[in-house]
């Protein structure tokens, strides 16, 4: 009580001349418009200035405008399209097979103890070995043709799909299993109504990793004894010292990676719309 009474007296001793200090915000602050593009644009400007002033030797790095005209030429003579098509076919074939393999293995190992006992160990071992380290063996077994390339991509893709789907499956709340029992769901209905939708968030997260893994494996297999594809185009350019074509290839890989990740995120938003009320 006494403290309360003295408060007004203290206040009069500090007149309003001292401005009220605004509390500093600890967060990063407001969002900047087109923020994501500022960094890349700055990089592009620095590159342009470097090339224009001759500070960047074209043998080290071609000028941005050279890259643009080279892209035009590559499109005009059809090399870009045909190589891109070959690469995309490889990536999608490997991705599709890997998704199928990873999902089936995750279901087998997630829904049965026996399946887990048999499958999980070998897959964890495979996971510890980088797919690319298997390449010498795969070349001996399958040669240097398409089957080796697609197999390598598949092996890189199925692991993240398996890991995340299996994890999603195993973290389904046991209360839902109990519910399924009380309403008398059959095994198949249980898988369709509870297991698959419950594991979908995990599967889609795995898919994002898988897509990245597919492009990554693609880059490597295409630079080994290839006769077509973006990687081959870049390898050839290296032999002739054409940095502009190498950069076209790099930009393509980057664009493909970004696009496919965006596509998976779109699928994620659509498929998991029931979560939107919580997450978005």
């Amino acid at each position, binding site marked *: 009580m006494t403290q309360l009474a003295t408060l007004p007296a203290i206040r009069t001793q500090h007149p309003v001349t001292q401005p009220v200090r605004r509390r500093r915000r600890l967060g990063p602050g407001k969002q900047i418009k087109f923020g994501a593009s500022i960094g890349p644009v700055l990089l592009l400007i620095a590159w342009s200035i470097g090339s224009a002033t001759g500070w960047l030797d074209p043998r080290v790095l071609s000028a941005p405008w050279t890259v643009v005209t080279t892209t035009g030429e590559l499109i005009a003579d059809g090399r870009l399209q045909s190589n891109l098509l070959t690469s995309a076919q490889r990536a999608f074939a490997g991705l599709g097979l890997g998704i199928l393999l990873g999902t089936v293995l995750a279901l087998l190992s997630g829904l049965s103890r026996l399946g887990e006992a048999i499958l999980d160990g070998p897959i964890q071992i495979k996971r510890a070995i980088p797919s690319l380290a298997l390449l010498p063996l795969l070349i001996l077994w399958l040669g240097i043709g398409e089957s080796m390339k697609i197999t390598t991509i598949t092996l890189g893709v199925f692991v993240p799909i398996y890991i995340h789907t299996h994890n999603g499956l195993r973290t389904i709340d046991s209360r839902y299993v109990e519910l399924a029992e009380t309403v*008398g769901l059959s095994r198949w209905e249980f898988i369709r*109504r509870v297991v698959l939708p419950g594991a979908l968030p995990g599967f889609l997260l795995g898919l994002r990793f898988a897509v990245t893994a597919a492009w990554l494996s693609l880059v490597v297999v295409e630079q080994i004894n290839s006769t077509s594809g973006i990687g081959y185009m870049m390898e050839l350019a290296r032999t002739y010292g054409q940095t502009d074509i190498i950069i076209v290839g790099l930009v393509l890989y980057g664009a493909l990676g970004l696009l496919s990740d965006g596509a998976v995120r779109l699928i994620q938003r659509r498929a998991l719309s*029931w*979560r939107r*009320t919580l997450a978005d």
Partner: protein
Amino acid sequence: MATHTGGLTLEKNKGRGLTLDQAVEVRGLTRKYDDRAVLDDLDLSIKPGEFVALLGKSGSGKSTLLRALAGLDYDVVGDGELAVPANVSVVFQDSRLLPWARVLDNVVLGLRRADERGRESLAEVGLAGREKAWPNELSGGEQQRVALARSLVREPALLLADEPFGALDALTRLKMHVLLRKLCAAHQPAVLLVTHDVDESIVLADRVIVLDEGRIVAEEPIELAEPRSPVDPGFAAVRSKLLDALGVSL
């Protein structure tokens, strides 16, 4: 002592057969966790259409009894006989709706060509028009109403409810009491409601059973006029009897 599969006879009464006159028949039911008897030689019968409330402190064995009747007690050590109808529905304390299935799909989960019945059931609990909503878009009370619709659309002969209103706020709970009475009057299932709320048990039940350390220590038929109100002297008398049995002296 015997395991569930070994010594326990769990007989499902397919329509008519074993127990014509009773919806639930339990004899000498014993359940043990770590040699501590949670249910101790328990006998209980519930008539068709009868509403029985089961009161008890936490750890008195009420949920264990309900889970035994629901057939959800695997790997539990126990003994005894029980007979329940073939068609049993369970309402849990949480609504337990599948978050990835729309409301109507939750209601008809596991049923074939039941969408029309599901809609009617939703209308009955006052949620007509919310068929396409996601469970997360509903309030707690609404979610529990969907759970009730999911149970009743199966036209159960026995409805088991494990503290179904325990997680709801007091006002919503009162509304749910009215709704549950209305639904039970319409569908006439036998009901076993587990609760720790004495007033709730008196308002809803035809008979209240008090469980303590795995045994029935009190049984009280409720014969109060409708609507049952806590200001009724008869209500207060029953309540003090039940509180006594629960070991709460006022």
